[in-house]
């Protein structure tokens, strides 16, 4: 059976089609999921990607309204039961708003929207979404956000560091004021990962700066096939 990875579309999602394309290039079957359809079981997806964009126009706070959509109730429930979930950019913001991941994303400290190819270090290559990388590996993928500054209280930051839950860290300059240069984190079980940079934009030489992002999607595919 082919592995089915769902990609949620909220009103205002932008990168859902790129995320589905990345899933396909990785070798899995992409499944388009609509925010209003909370019946994840019927879709028979093995994992879910929350894509980048501006769900609900970023009204109130980025990701704050998407969090209450029917599909997110199902995603939260399944994520707690171990289903792999990857949140990219706005998807990371949604994961923080649902409290599947700790902390929050705030306006970039320099107030400018940042859009560039970003060097990262993979700090944790043992999550479901990063197992195809080597620990410490450096990768380059696009980064584009206005509210990408990761914040959490010192105790949470220490906990994340101590438990190896910082998944990727910014290299070559902090682009948005994120505490401790954190670009992405995971939950305790390693099945939920959120990051601000966009691995789905770096899966083909024709359109991406590298193909370094593909590993996120092949990692999940391999884990799912093996399980």
């Amino acid at each position, binding site marked *: 059976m082919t592995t089915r990875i769902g990609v949620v579309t909220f009103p205002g999602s932008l990168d859902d089609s790129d995320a589905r394309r990345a899933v396909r290039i990785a070798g899995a079957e992409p499944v388009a999921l609509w925010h209003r359809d909370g019946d994840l079981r019927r879709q028979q997806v093995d994992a879910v990607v929350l894509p980048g964009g501006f769900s609900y126009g970023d009204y*109130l706070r980025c990701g704050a309204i998407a969090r209450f959509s029917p599909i997110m109730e199902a995603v939260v429930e399944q994520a707690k039961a171990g289903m792999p979930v990857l949140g990219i950019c706005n998807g990371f913001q949604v994961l923080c708003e649902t409290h599947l991941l700790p902390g929050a994303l*705030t*306006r970039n400290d320099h*107030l400018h929207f940042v859009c560039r190819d970003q060097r990262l270090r993979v700090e944790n290559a043992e999550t479901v979404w990063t197992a195809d990388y080597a620990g410490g590996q450096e990768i380059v993928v696009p980064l584009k956000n206005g509210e990408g500054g990761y914040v959490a209280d010192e105790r949470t930051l220490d906990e994340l560091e101590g438990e190896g839950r910082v998944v990727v860290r910014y290299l070559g300059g902090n682009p948005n004021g994120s505490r401790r240069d954190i670009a992405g984190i995971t939950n305790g079980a390693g099945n939920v990962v959120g990051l601000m940079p966009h691995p789905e934009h770096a899966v083909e030489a024709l359109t991406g700066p590298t193909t370094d992002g593909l590993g996120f999607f092949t990692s999940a595919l391999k884990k799912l096939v093996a399980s």
Partner: protein
Amino acid sequence: MARVVVDVMLKPEILDPQGQAVQRALPRLGFEGISDVRQGKRFELEVEGPVDAAALARIHELAETFLANTVIEDFTVRVQDADGSERPAGDGSPHGGNTGNATSEGAVA
């Protein structure tokens, strides 16, 4: 009908680059003497029926779970009566050290 006002502010320890940008623009516009600006959000809720303790508890819950992200923000709840007078009705601070709750409960009846 009464209006309940929820103010949401970034916690003091959270950087507010928007407020800083506003503050930095002030001298350029000829406004001197403002040493700091913090920017927040104000929500005005028109409440159907009496604003009693139960209604305030629900509003407190909606403020805590939706209007504010308490990881980075604090909130306060105030009741605005028809004559425009206001009374505090609790806040989202972990200390709960304000007199708001006592005041609002006293004023409910």
